[in-house]
């Protein structure tokens, strides 16, 4: 394929929209992870096929290419690949930390609760009886408790990111084609990674890598290449129509009698909509959301610098830490519902305080970064690997 390789993007100002929407996605994931939370009605999964996970994965791919693509062009493959693997290791450690917290919660609940109405459901805690197997399966990323599927996906995506990034830097189109082929083959041949004790990974890495690689492709110049097409009125109109269609289907999930008005052939064509395998309907919904968002909010929209967006932007810039905190807070929030109160007022309080804690933590991490950088007192590092440029949070 004869094609002029894209250069890594010029060192322009970071696109704040990415941080903003990744931060918002982290908040939405937190809200969705608290079961029976009335506030989760505001999250996007109730209004269309895709949810915050798509936003998070796409933007993570984008920023990963932004940071490591530059490292690869300047410092070469080995250095960039080593940094990617270090990042994967950090995420693994974070995942194991979260698993420990989950164990603590489950162990507590299993000792304090024995209602005969729920003897079947209590069986979910039986794995505590044989930690010899369970803990090892968890360390192998095969046993993944509820809502702890995103980080293992992220780890696998990073493990094969260096070669795909190398390819994207040389031939962006070929890289994207390879990624799309893997996606198509995972659907054709049913590829996924086995989970323990049964089943498969909730987020199939062979399918979800497409969104991650597409994000990377956009960051490495693909975004500019399709910019005119994305902002054309026809595309925006089509995207809006698709969002309306998606909304009209999703509303029948919450008001089942409305399902009678969905023509049978439509139902047969669209169901089941697989989240595990990143259904095409979900992918299209995410693209439509992106198109409309880009149309609504230009990159240089002055309001992005307003203080009101600062908390979300900070959260987006420190996504790993804030994601983990969000998972912990959703455990804690459910614990409050169980042990204190689950009144609507309490649900709102828990949701709002969770977001406030995430924002405060992000501000704290930023502050640490600043003082640590000052503390080293060294001269300016080469700009290419200066971590602060992209928050080092790929």
């Amino acid at each position, binding site marked *: 394929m004869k094609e002029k390789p894209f250069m890594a993007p010029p060192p322009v100002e970071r696109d704040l929209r990415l941080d903003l929407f990744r931060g*918002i996605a982290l908040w939405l994931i937190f809200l969705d*992870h*608290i*079961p*029976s939370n009335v506030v989760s*009605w*505001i*999250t*996007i999964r*109730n*209004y269309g096929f895709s949810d915050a996970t798509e936003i998070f994965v796409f933007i993570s791919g984008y920023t990963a290419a932004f940071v490591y693509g530059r490292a690869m062009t300047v410092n070469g493959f080995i250095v960039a690949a080593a940094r990617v693997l270090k990042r994967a290791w950090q995420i693994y450690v974070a995942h194991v930390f979260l698993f420990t917290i989950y164990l603590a*919660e*489950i162990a507590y*609940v299993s000792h*304090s*609760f*024995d*209602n*005969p*109405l*729920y*003897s*079947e*459901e*209590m*069986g*979910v*805690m039986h794995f505590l009886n044989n930690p010899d197997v369970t803990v090892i399966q968890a360390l192998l990323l095969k046993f993944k*408790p*509820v*809502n702890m599927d995103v980080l293992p996906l992220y780890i696998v995506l990073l493990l094969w990111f260096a070669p795909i990034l190398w390819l994207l830097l040389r031939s962006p189109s070929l890289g994207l084609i390879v990624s799309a082929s893997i996606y198509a083959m995972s659907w054709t041949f049913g590829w996924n990674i086995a*989970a323990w*004790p*049964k*089943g*498969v990974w*909730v987020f199939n890495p062979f399918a979800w890598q497409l969104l991650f690689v597409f994000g990377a492709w956009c960051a490495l110049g693909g975004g500019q290449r399709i910019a005119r097409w994305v902002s054309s009125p026809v595309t925006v109109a089509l995207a809006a129509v698709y969002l309306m269609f998606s909304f009209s289907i999703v*509303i029948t*999930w*919450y*008001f*089942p*009698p*409305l*399902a*009678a008005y969905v023509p049978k052939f439509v*139902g*047969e064509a669209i*169901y*089941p909509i*697989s*989240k*595990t395998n990143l259904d095409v309907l979900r992918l299209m919904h995410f693209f439509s959301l992106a198109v409309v968002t880009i149309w609504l909010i230009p990159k240089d929209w002055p309001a992005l610098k307003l203080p009101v967006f600062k908390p979300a932007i900070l959260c987006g810039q420190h996504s790993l830490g804030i994601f983990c905190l969000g998972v912990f807070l*959703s*455990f804690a929030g*459910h614990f409050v*519902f*169980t042990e204190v109160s*689950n009144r609507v007022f309490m649900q709102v309080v828990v949701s709002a305080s969770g977001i406030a804690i995430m924002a405060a933590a992000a501000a704290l991490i930023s502050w640490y970064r600043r003082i640590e950088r000052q503390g080293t007192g060294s001269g300016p590092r080469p700009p290419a690997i200066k971590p602060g440029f992209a928050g080092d949070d790929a």
Partner: protein
Amino acid sequence: MTGRFWKALAVAGLALPVLAWPGSAFAEHPAECYVAGDQTDVDFPLRLVARAIAGKQLNILVLGAGSSSLPGPNGVKKAYPARLQQALAAKLPGVAVKVATDVKSRRTAADMVKSLVPSLAAAKPALLIWQTATVDAMQAVDPDRFGQALDKGINLARSAGADVVFVNPQYSPRTESMIALGTYVENLRWVALQQEVPVFDRFNLMKTWADLGTFDLYSATKKLDMAERVHDCIGRLLAALVLDAAKLPTGPHNEPRHEPQAEGSR
């Protein structure tokens, strides 16, 4: 975000007048079971049940896992299959109602399908009430396989001359953060929609009970009395659903007869 907020408000606004409709068939239930905007949404007719009632002999098979039973010496008598039989018998004087069970805990939908053929042969039901999805969610069975097992079970029941009603999982607030029911509840509903099977929406029913304070489902009690009352209510509401669906006109398309629920099932 504000746009979404207004959308949410609009959705809530649409729901309110609908919720205000009086519940029709359930007025005779004791207050503790009654739920405005009841959760048993019947869209599809049970033709074979109607025929069985006309023939004065109604056999039902309950196929289920642990949440279709109760522990203890009186467990069988107090669990919802037995309560269902009693409620139906009371409402169908002159009809011999018999509810058989094939209930064992920790069974996935695929596990249950394995024992379905002999159970159908033994019970000769006009109706299969199939409670499932909880164990599949606990074991994180591949959602596609789960859907395939449901399809297979429906086909087996129909070829044995039985209608099918699904019963979806219990609402279990303490274990909610540990069992990801969402995908399985949704897949079950999609299969039901495609195959025209009514769903007894136990999840949202119990959630509404919890919200209204009808039952304290968070309770850490080890005693059976609340569990027994819950099963009694489920049995009676299930009976009402069966009778309602048996009375549905059996045209090709039925307008929805029941009002929607307030909560999403996730």
